[in-house]
């Protein structure tokens, strides 16, 4: 028999159970109820779907069937421990665990466990949700983040994010390296106070502020220095963007910074060395060029254009154009020949020539070039072009001045010898006049003249006129203004011509000049007039010295011989007072003279003439008293007789 109340209660309970069942089956999460021993009592539809078991298969089985090892072995222990101690390790909290399907596959689940109150022995309900997708998403996110971090760290630029206060919110590894900080120590610090040099801090911060006011957008590119932790300064090239929130408000900046300190330093060094080279070329007025052979592209330094007066913008000329347009026509053949010797025979080019600027002005240049290879090891000619116009002009001026001084000294020496020369011309003139007058008298009485006397007078008149003319000719050739030139000449001839001037002067002073010449004298290459000038000067000095001293030795000896080195030595010996040490010290100093009317140029000019001839002037005492002044002239090789 059925108690109606009991029946009603049973019915009510049945309804409740159906409702619960419906709730369990409607739940997205799997619901599993177990008893105190761990046996499954309830297994919802979701649980069936999740695990691949039907409820009937698992009800009554231990719940560990849903777990893989090691959870499976540990579960009974956990359960027993909880029942015994009441300790709530998992109850009320959820946690991630791994579950096992019927087919053995494992999957991550989020498990929350509740204890059903007021039943004894206790029972437990577990809510299990499959978190495979979530796990995957989180994992993907993490990997994405790691990858991003790796990218940041891999980047060879500093990446820096600042919030609106200027606090560092992100910095990558490179940033840390550049700034000398561990990245994590930088995050949270104020960028401006930590990493900017004090003098920049205000300005940079002011600009930063304006990004947030919307008053300015960051420049795409900016450069400024930062200070590292150790105080070193580095120049950083920045690229900046602003970060905005979803409403478009600026919430920070993101910057990439490249350390350009070294690069800038190298560029600066390069720029400086280029500037130095340009300055040096400008100061030296020296340009350089490279031309790939045969007449390929050229490089010209700026100074090349300055020297040649060409437009730098137009670039270098080809060799053919250069030769045709810049080289002076008078020098062109020579320069072209030198260039072809360089390019065909690899003979280094070393030439002085004239160039003509577009404005027609002429400059002297010295060019040196040799063959070499460029960076791609193609044959090229490389060289320099040096504007030596000023030097040339100065040299020319010096040369002309020297010539004038030499000329002056020659005239001055000649002046000293004028009395002797006048005598030398006066003699034939006297003879001519006297012969003519005698002839007139002889012929005055017809038939009285001896024909031999007439013949003698007439031939002597012409001979003496020629004699006077010869003296004047030599005199003219000696004193006339002339360019220096070199001849090959026999030393004896040099002396013979000289005696025209020297002998009368000596005779006038009652002095005999004796010439002693060795037999084996070679030819010498010299400017005869200049060497005669030297000799005349020495003879003049010897005459003065002789007058100053002994009446006994009124003789000057000129000797010519070969010295030990094969050079020709010409000496002038006198028996005068000799050269004192005091005088010897100053000998050859311009304007130093011991003579009341001397110019003090004779010896100085003689020295410079001999230097130009590759010879030298020296003196020694004459044995037995007096001075011997001598000089050497290099012998012409191969002119030995």
């Amino acid at each position, binding site marked *: 028999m059925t108690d109606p109340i009991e029946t009603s209660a049973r019915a009510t309970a049945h309804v409740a159970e159906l409702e619960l069942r419906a709730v369990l089956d409607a739940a997205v999460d799997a619901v599993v109820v177990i008893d105190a021993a761990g046996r499954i009592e309830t297994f919802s539809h979701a649980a069936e779907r999740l695990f691949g078991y039907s409820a009937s298969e698992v009800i009554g089985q231990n719940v560990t069937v849903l777990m893989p090892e090691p959870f499976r072995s540990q579960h009974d222990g956990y359960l027993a421990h909880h029942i015994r101690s009441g300790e709530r390790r998992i109850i009320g909290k959820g946690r991630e665990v791994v579950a096992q399907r019927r087919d053995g596959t494992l999957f991550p689940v989020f498990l929350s466990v509740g204890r059903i109150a007021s039943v004894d022995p206790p029972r437990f309900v577990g809510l299990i949700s499959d978190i495979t997708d979530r796990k995957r998403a989180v994992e993907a996110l993490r990997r994405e983040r790691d990858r991003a971090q790796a990218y940041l760290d891999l980047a060879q630029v500093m990446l820096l994010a600042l919030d609106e206060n200027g606090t560092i919110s992100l910095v990558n590894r490179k940033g840390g390296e550049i700034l000398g900080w561990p990245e994590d120590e930088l995050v949270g610090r104020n960028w401006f106070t930590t990493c900017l040099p004090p003098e920049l801090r205000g300005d940079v911060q002011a600009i930063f502020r304006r990004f947030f006011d919307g008053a300015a957008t960051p420049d795409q590119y900016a450069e400024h220095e930062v200070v590292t932790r150790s105080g070193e300064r580095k120049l950083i090239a920045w690229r900046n963007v602003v970060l905005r929130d979803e409403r478009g408000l600026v919430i920070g900046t993101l910057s990439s910074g490249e350390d350009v300190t070294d690069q800038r330093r190298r560029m600066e060094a390069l720029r400086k060395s280029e500037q130095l080279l340009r300055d040096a070329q400008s100061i030296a007025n020296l340009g350089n060029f490279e031309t790939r052979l045969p007449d390929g592209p050229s490089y010209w330094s700026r100074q090349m254009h300055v020297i040649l007066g060409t437009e730098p913008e137009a670039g270098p000329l080809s060799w053919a154009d250069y030769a045709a347009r810049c080289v002076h026509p008078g020098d062109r053949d020579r320069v072209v020949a030198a260039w072809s010797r360089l390019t065909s025979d690899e003979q280094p080019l070393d030439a002085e020539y004239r160039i003509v600027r577009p404005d027609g002005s002429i400059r002297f240049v010295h060019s040196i070039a040799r063959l070499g290879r460029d960076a791609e090891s193609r044959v090229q000619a490389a060289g320099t072009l040096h504007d030596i116009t000023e030097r040339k002009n100065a040299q020319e001026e010096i040369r002309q001045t020297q010539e004038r001084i030499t000329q002056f000294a020659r005239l001055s020496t000649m002046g000293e010898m004028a*009395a002797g020369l*006048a*005598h030398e011309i*006066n*003699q*034939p*003139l*006297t*003879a*001519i*006049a*006297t*012969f003519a*007058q*005698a*002839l007139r*008298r*002889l012929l005055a009485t017809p038939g009285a003249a001896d024909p031999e*006397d007439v013949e*003698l*007078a007439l031939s*002597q008149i012409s*001979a*003496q006129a020629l*004699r006077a003319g010869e003296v004047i000719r030599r005199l003219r050739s000696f004193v006339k203004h002339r360019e220096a030139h070199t001849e090959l000449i026999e030393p004896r001839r040099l002396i013979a011509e000289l005696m025209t001037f020297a002998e009368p002067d000596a*005779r*006038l002073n*009652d002095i*005999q000049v004796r010439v002693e010449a060795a037999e084996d004298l070679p030819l010498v290459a010299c400017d005869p007039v200049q060497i005669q000038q030297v000799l005349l000067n020495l003879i003049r000095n010897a005459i003065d010295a002789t007058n100053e001293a002994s009446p006994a030795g009124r003789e000057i000896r000129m000797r010519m011989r070969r010295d030990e080195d094969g050079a020709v030595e010409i000496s002038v010996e006198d028996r005068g007072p000799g050269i004192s040490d005091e005088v010897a010290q100053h000998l050859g100093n311009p304007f130093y003279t011991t003579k009341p009317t001397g110019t003090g140029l004779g010896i100085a000019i003689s020295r410079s003439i001999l230097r130009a001839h590759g010879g030298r002037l020296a003196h020694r005492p004459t044995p037995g008293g007096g001075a011997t002044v001598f000089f050497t002239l290099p012998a012409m090789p191969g002119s030995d007789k």
Partner: protein
Amino acid sequence: MKEKPATVFVVDDDEAVRTSLRLLLKSVGLPVETFASAQEFLDQFDPGRAGCLVLDIRMPGMSGLELQQHLNDRHSIMPIVFITGHGDVPMAVEAMQAGAVDFIQKPFRDQDLIDRINRALEKDREMRGELRERDEIRRRMSQLTPREREVLELVTQGKANKVIAGDLNVSQRTVEIHRARVMEKMGANSLAHLVRMVIEAHRED
């Protein structure tokens, strides 16, 4: 003995000048002898020969001035015409001080030289005449007695007979007799003439 005719001696180291002078002097009929150096002339020098010397002042070796000095040392009376160049004026002055008769600068007009040579030859003649006169005076003086020589000395000193008598410690009359004999032997026609002859006799040769 017969004297050689007065000769023009030319000394010049320049052959052309020397030859031209020889020809010029020949053309005017003057006997010429030429020498290439002073030494050459000195070597054959004969003080007895009449003539004059045309001498180049500048020569190698012995110069004209040195030759003049040598000739003076030998009491030569031969007149010298120096030939000088330009600028030899100081030497010419020296030559004149040493007794040269003249100098002429090269080159010269023939007539100027001939005139100078003629003057020199005239001078030579005069000098030789004087020389002969002096020799005669000296010959006459040599015929005086020692006492007559003493009287001559004192008379030509301008002393009166009375003073001379005192000096010689003889009578005034004796002095007068000696004096008359001196005048006679010397061929003097006045006291002044006598004095001139004594001065001439004492002249250096």
